[in-house]
């Protein structure tokens, strides 16, 4: 079992609110880990710490054995860390395809001078990105709406676009923040299948999700978080069955 992402002794507090209390966590190649816990447990905060949106007070974050704590967000992305967002954060003025086109670790126009001095190089990178985008859109059932603006597609499709955009990264580690919230029917099955396929291709995945059925169907393992702490790690079945954790979750 190879650890792709290793978080150790991670701490973060905002004033009196502790969002990460000495967190140790590892994500394993090809496995899906579910983060379970009530609202305010620090699940999304953990994602934000790992991605560099928020800087920790102390602790270490290693991606494939390299310390990434302190690196800017973009550098982590270019090392193979990708995520989706609870509130989607899609580019509203771009089509579905153009949202994906911006996703590769190296973008066609990242180097400005290439536009002028290496137009062939840029054109080749654009073609490669488009081919890759269409392959992902086919896989996620979005190929038909590739040229639609984001605001013209359904919420379930928008969720899928968020996942599809993250897939453009060829990430080694993928963080999914509530991929199923508000999703039903066909999109539900498509997201589930997409996540399984990605894991099968060797990516380490972590999912924050309130839909317990989805977590149980999908995740190899679960972690229960409460008040910025990791309380337990184990099979999702065992975590759900634990009366103490259930009590914390529902706050009875």
């Amino acid at each position, binding site marked *: 079992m190879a650890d792709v992402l290793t978080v150790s002794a991670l701490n973060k507090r905002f004033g009196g609110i502790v969002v990460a209390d000495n967190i140790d966590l590892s994500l394993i190649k090809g496995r899906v880990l579910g983060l379970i816990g009530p609202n305010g447990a620090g699940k999304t905060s953990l994602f934000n710490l790992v991605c560099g949106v928020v800087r920790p007070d102390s602790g270490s974050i290693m991606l494939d054995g390299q310390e990434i704590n302190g690196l800017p967000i973009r550098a982590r*992305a270019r090392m193979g860390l990708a*995520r989706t967002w609870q509130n989607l954060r899609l*580019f509203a*003025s*771009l*089509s579905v395809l153009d949202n994906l086109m*911006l996703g590769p670790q190296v973008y066609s*126009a990242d180097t400005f001078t290439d536009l002028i001095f290496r137009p062939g190089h840029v054109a080749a990178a*654009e073609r490669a990105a488009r081919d890759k985008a269409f392959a992902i859109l086919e896989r996620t059932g979005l190929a038909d709406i590739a040229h639609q603006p984001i605001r013209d597609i359904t919420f379930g499709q928008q969720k899928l676009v968020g996942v599809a955009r993250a897939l453009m*990264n060829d990430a080694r580690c993928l963080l999914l923040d509530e991929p199923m919230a508000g999703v039903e029917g066909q999109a539900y099955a498509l997201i589930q299948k997409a996540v399984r396929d990605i894991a099968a291709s060797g990516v380490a995945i972590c999912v924050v999700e309130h839909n317990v059925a989805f977590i149980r169907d999908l995740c190899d393992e679960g972690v229960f978080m409460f008040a910025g702490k990791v309380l337990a790690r184990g099979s999702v079945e065992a975590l759900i069955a634990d009366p103490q954790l259930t009590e914390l979750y529902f706050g009875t």
Partner: protein
Amino acid sequence: MDYIYTILILIGLFVILASSFDLVIGHCGLISIAHPIFYALGAYVSAMLAKEGGVPIPLAMLAGGAAAFLASVLVALPSLRVSGDYLLIASIGFQLGLIEFAKHIHSIGGAGGLTNIPSFLVNSYGRLSYVILVLAVAVLTVLFVRWLTSGPYGRMMAAMRDDELAFSMLGRNAIWVKVSVFAIGSGIAGVAGGLYAHYFRFLEPDQFGLLQSSAILTMVVVGGMRTTWGPVIGAVVLQILPQAITFLGLPPSILGPLQGLMFSGLVLVFMFARPQGLLAAPDIWAGRSTRERADG
């Protein structure tokens, strides 16, 4: 006829300024109104190199553009590293500070202005040749901005305006995009400055102040941000209108204030009646590739 040529040259220069300014504030979404200081830098550097250094004028103009490019990087890099809002403050500070500074430098003419700037083309080929030169640069600028914003770089700028955090999480470098676009826009303004200097042959620091900032901003807003032709139309209309009312036969005591009122009046009217400008930009970015697919 000379009058018409001069008007055409001014229109051409403001097309260059408005189009490059739209690249910065419209397409890239940066908050800055200091465009005229980079115009000024290009003008002064080109004028001084040609006048005192004997540098061939086309080279001096390009050097003026390069100076504006470099200066804009120095202004933008530290402020954009902090936050986008600081660019507005830093650039206005740079603009007003440099104008005051220039007024006290005797060797560049001080507050009285820099005179006897060498002329270009006009003496040997006539004014029409200069009109053609300026309009050619204007066309090139408009085409360049259109090319840049409708390609992969335009897609980046659109995404960055929408959501900078998501943009960074894909591995894109927002600060670098902003600094690059700011520098390119400012560099183009610098070249326009050189074109101005060697035609009018006189520069004074005060002409590059906030009044000119508001004029260029008005051109972009009235014409239509993030459109190819909006800044062009804005520049043409706002150059011709003040000239046109001089033919009304009004006394100079009314004419002067009226021209000033026209700019602020136009902005107000447009803010209420048509905030998107004469030409409205599409709210969905459509690049070259999209258009090709639509045609095919």
